[in-house]
């Protein structure tokens, strides 16, 4: 269930972090431009810079506890690192780098494979940290409001909002159901564990649909008409900040261009 706690916590930080009162447009612009530059950049220099920048912003400006940030990073890092090792081992063919003895087999490692592995790893690091910056500092409702202003069809924004709410309904229903089952001795022993779990998954949908409909009813009863409205006036983006970000992005783009040929291996 830990993934769900993760989403609930990400959501909580989005509403409570030290940057939550800043303009969501600025934050979105910042995150997306760094993200794009990381992904487009051919060498690892720019993604590394982006990773460091956003990490500093997340920890020092938004004041997200570093423990939590590490927890977020840990899981993707492991997967990507493993995958990049695979890419490095299997996916080169141009220029042999070295040979290793693996499980009694002689294995040729190629320079281009290792290079791709490294580049990919750092690209992911830069991109992912930009994405984390966005979600840790910007409440989902603000993101949806921006989408609405950007003329994304209303039905999409509305469905997104509902799905977003129901995700948390799901999580809550799942947790309370799990506790209720434990209190009546579910999950004791393998067979009971299976029975409890299948009952949980099978009924999760039913319960959530039921709860979801009742919540929708309650929303309708308070005049909900498909439009999202929030109380906090969305802070206006600050032009100086936008220009600063633009400048930084251009500088990074130039760096990216200049470092095209820099290789780690």
């Amino acid at each position, binding site marked *: 269930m830990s993934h769900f706690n993760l989403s609930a916590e990400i959501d909580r930080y989005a*509403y409570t972090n030290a940057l939550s009162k800043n303009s969501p447009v600025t934050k979105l612009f910042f995150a997306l431009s760094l993200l794009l530059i990381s992904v487009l950049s051919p060498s690892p220099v720019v993604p590394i810079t982006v990773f460091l920048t956003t990490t500093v912003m997340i920890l020092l400006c938004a004041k997200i506890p570093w423990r939590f940030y590490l927890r977020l990073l840990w899981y993707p890092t492991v997967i990507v690192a493993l995958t990049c090792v695979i890419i490095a081992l299997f996916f080169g063919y141009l220029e042999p780098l070295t040979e290793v003895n693996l499980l009694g087999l002689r294995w040729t490692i190629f320079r281009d494979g290792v290079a791709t592995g490294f580049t990919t790893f750092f690209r992911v690091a830069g991109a992912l940290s930009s994405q984390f910056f966005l979600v840790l500092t910007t*409440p989902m409702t603000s993101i949806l409001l921006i989408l609405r202003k950007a003329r994304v069809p209303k039905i999409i924004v509305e469905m997104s909002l509902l799905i977003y709410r129901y995700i948390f*309904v799901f999580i809550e229903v799942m947790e309370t159901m799990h506790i209720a089952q434990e209190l009546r001795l579910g999950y004791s022993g393998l067979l009971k564990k299976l029975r409890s779990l299948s009952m949980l998954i099978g009924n999760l949908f039913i319960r959530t649909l039921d709860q979801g409909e009742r*919540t929708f009813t*309650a929303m309708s*009863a*308070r*005049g909900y*008409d498909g439009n999202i409205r929030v*109380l906090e006036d969305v802070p206006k983006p600050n032009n100086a900040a936008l220009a600063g970000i633009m400048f930084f992005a251009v500088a990074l783009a130039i760096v990216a261009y200049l470092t095209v040929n820099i290789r780690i291996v």
Partner: protein
Amino acid sequence: MLFRLENLSHQYSDGTIALDNISLSFSKGERIALLGPNGSGKTTLLLHLIGILKPTSGKVYFEDKPLEYTPKALLELRRRVGFVFQDPNDQLFAPTVKQDVAFGPLNLGQPADQVRKAVDEALKLVGMSEYAEKPPHFLSFGQKKRVALAGVLAMKPDAIILDEPTSNLDPRGTSEILHLLLRLNKELGLTLILATHDVDMVPLFANKLYILNKGKLVSEGAPAELFSDTELIRSINLRSPRITHLFEVLKKEDKLPINPRLPLTISEARKEILRLLESETGEKKKRTRT
């Protein structure tokens, strides 16, 4: 007439007949209580009033016009009539208490500072101001109920429908909210329609009482009138208010000369006891003289 139900029946998709040919009408400015055992159809009836459920047969009239189920007509209806749900967990969904209470007023299209004022006021009325920034799912059950009520009060409707408003509230909360509702009723003419199991509260609150049982309307009238019919009350899983019950016993078992119109509230009971003491001594006096 604010609401009128004409031969209303409702059958749920699994075949349960939850309402069976109900006709009644609620006037403006009244304080109406719906009483009935579990599963008698109270919630189902209330959900028809704001167009969340559609009758299987029969009609709902709002201000003498048949209810239309178009989004626009429903929106207008819900702007005028607030609804507080029986289970506050159904009703609260915003990330903070404040935003939840603001949801209704914002949907009414009010400007931000007016909304803010309405929210602060409503939270104060239900005694939850200090929890404004807390996420609703971190509140105790009774606190959630208060917030749910605030969410509706903030919309300043003409009528409020409340499904079990006082269950899970502490006694002070119950009495504060009752007094608040009575005040709104008196000062602003707010119509109140409420479903409840709390028979002790009904005489303090309602001027009109409807009794439901198994989907049927079994009785309507003033609370004093209906509670005198102890047979009826007993027969459908209800009971008289405790105070009334005390006097029933005194009358039946101890053969005391209690007024035929049994007292329902503490203040009525007090008068009755004083009267008893007076007359009793009078009686005895007479007897000793002769």
